[in-house]
């Protein structure tokens, strides 16, 4: 397995190159792309099963020894995230097939999707902080191109906004790396962990950790770096919004988890209150932001901010229980939100709008599509026994166990608002009469939404699987010495 670790990067990369070279043969390109995504998903599952035993796989790029070369590492967290990325990106690409066929720019769509996937998976695989930066750039630029895919003014504006703010974060990333390098002289994550623990949580190191928190907050859309998200979700093409909400923001979350459990353990303990505050403000902001919206996608976008706040809250507890809850939440939310954004796109396809005031009566007009959305809304609102409920439940348990009563109470109170917006949005969408007539949508779109939405049910009734897996992941990541030793002893 160790030898195969570069596959999640190389497969999308080679596929993207191949797709660019055959871009005049549309059918061939589409097939190749879908096959590659399927192989990628299969490999991701293989990686997941391989990491399940607890072994941490290491691949030393160019055979350079620790900590000098770039080292890829795959633990359970990596396996989980790669599966998420592979599954969701594949579903979104399949969904896009449903309406992409007549667009002239489709010939670059598939290559770009693969480049994006490469960036995402590369970020999950790497054990090197600077390399993470590189893959952030790959992600950023491919996402930019995909956001502006239709090249209309709205989308260009959104893409520009996304890019400017993320370039700001990239600059901050470089500043952070230079601060780190000047203090400890290394960029390998495991080595950083060792050396930062050696010098202790000095003020400058705490500041450095804080800078990284901001950098990753931009990707993870946490307060105060969350401003770009709503428009990027709602104005971009649906499948891109779904990848953004399902996977890209999780890259930021993933990086924060790595910071909190591996790189900056000491400094993050000092920053715990701040992190918790950030999480709570994000929760509140996202929840309140959903209330006055008219656009279905925009509501989902604010709800993403809200949910990301919950995940960050789990991380901010800095305890195995909190991590378990956060991992559970990440997986549950990734499938959930991408299914809902695709579902919104499906409704857009059916009615030609995402404006809730123009929708109405979907329950009668498109019963299956609105049932899919209903599953999403129920899960998002935290209604048992769907996955969204358990995600919140475990978080609350972790919070109470930690003794963070007030913060957890506030998080719970926002649950009422989440009840409100989810149910009223469903009402406006599905109930009543009027609104536009429903058209037809290709079956392929239904199937990808169904695939993603089914996880809300699977991880609801089968909560034990995901919970126990999250525990295993949390067990491993809260013991940084496992990761460090694996890197040190790698062949």
């Amino acid at each position: 397995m160790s030898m195969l670790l570069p596959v999640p990067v190389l497969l999308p990369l080679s596929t993207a190159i191949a797709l660019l070279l055959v871009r005049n043969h549309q059918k061939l390109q589409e097939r190749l792309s879908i096959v590659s995504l399927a192989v990628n998903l299969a490999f991701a599952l293989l990686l997941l099963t391989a990491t399940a035993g607890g072994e941490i796989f290491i691949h030393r790029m160019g055979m350079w020894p620790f900590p000098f070369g770039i080292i890829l590492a795959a633990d359970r967290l990596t396996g989980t995230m790669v599966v998420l990325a592979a599954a969701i990106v594949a579903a979104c690409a399949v969904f896009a097939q449903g309406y992409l066929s007549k667009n002239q720019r489709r010939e670059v769509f598939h290559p770009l999707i693969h480049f994006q996937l490469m960036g995402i998976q590369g970020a999950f695989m790497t054990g090197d902080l600077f390399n993470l930066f590189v893959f952030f750039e790959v992600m950023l630029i491919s996402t930019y191109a995909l956001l502006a895919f239709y090249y209309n003014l709205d989308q260009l504006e959104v893409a520009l906004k996304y890019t400017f703010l993320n370039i700001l974060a990239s600059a901050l990333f470089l500043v952070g790396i230079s601060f780190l390098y000047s203090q400890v002289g290394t960029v390998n994550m495991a080595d950083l962990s060792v050396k930062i623990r050696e010098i202790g949580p000095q003020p400058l190191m705490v500041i450095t950790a804080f800078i990284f928190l901001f950098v990753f907050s931009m990707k993870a859309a946490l307060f105060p770096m969350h401003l770009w998200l709503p428009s990027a979700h709602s104005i971009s093409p649906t499948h891109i919004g779904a990848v953004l909400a399902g996977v890209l923001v999780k890259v930021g979350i993933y990086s924060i988890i790595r910071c909190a459990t591996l790189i900056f353990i000491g400094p993050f303990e000092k920053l715990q209150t701040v992190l918790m505050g950030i999480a709570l403000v994000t929760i509140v902001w996202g929840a309140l932001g959903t209330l006055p919206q008219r656009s279905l996608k925009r509501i989902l976008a604010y709800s993403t901010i809200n949910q990301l706040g919950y995940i960050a809250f789990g991380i901010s507890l800095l305890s195995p229980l909190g991590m378990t809850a956060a991992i559970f939440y990440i997986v549950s939310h990734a499938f959930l939100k991408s299914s809902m954004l695709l579902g919104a796109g499906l409704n857009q396809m059916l009615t030609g709008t995402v404006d809730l005031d123009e929708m109405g009566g979907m329950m009668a007009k498109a019963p299956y599509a609105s049932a899919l959305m209903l599953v999403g809304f129920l899960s998002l609102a935290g209604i048992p026994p769907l996955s969204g409920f358990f995600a919140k439940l475990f978080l609350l348990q972790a919070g109470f166990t930690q003794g963070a009563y007030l913060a957890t109470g506030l998080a719970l109170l926002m649950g009422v608002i989440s009840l409100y917006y989810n149910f009223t949005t469903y009402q406006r969408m599905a109930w009543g009469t009027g609104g536009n007539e429903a058209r037809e949508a290709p079956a392929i779109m239904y199937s990808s939404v169904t695939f993603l939405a089914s996880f809300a049910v699977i991880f609801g009734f089968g909560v034990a699987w995901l919970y126990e897996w999250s525990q295993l992941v949390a067990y491993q990541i809260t013991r940084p010495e496992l990761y460090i030793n694996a890197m040190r002893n790698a062949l």
Partner: protein
Amino acid sequence: MHSLILRTIAPIVLHLTLIFSLFLLLYGHNQPGGGFIAGLMTAVGIVLQWVTFDANDGWHRYNWPWDRIFCYGLALSTCVGLFGLLSGYFLKSSAYEFVIPFIGEIEVLTAFFFDIGVYAVVVAVLMSILTTFCDRRATIRGGPK
């Protein structure tokens, strides 16, 4: 820019630039240089050359399929990495010694081919962007030619 002197000198300068950039590419592993710098220099040289000839339409001469070339470059670099993977590690560099008649023994690092990929990507991407801009401008000004 219709100065005769410039027109005469420009090709020479271009060729000199190209030679220098190739030198940077080939000797990059021992002296300052490398595929990245060499690529930039080549591209800048070409642009200066076309601007000297005809600022508006000079780019037509260089309207090559750059978008394919950068793909090949990226593919080359990736393949070098994959070649390393044959011995177990991605991007593992290895050295091969050849004896070439009259020149003697030379050592070739696989990393060198990686650098060539980098060079190709840098040149091709820059040229692709520049020609695309010019193409766009031409479209805006008078429809596609």
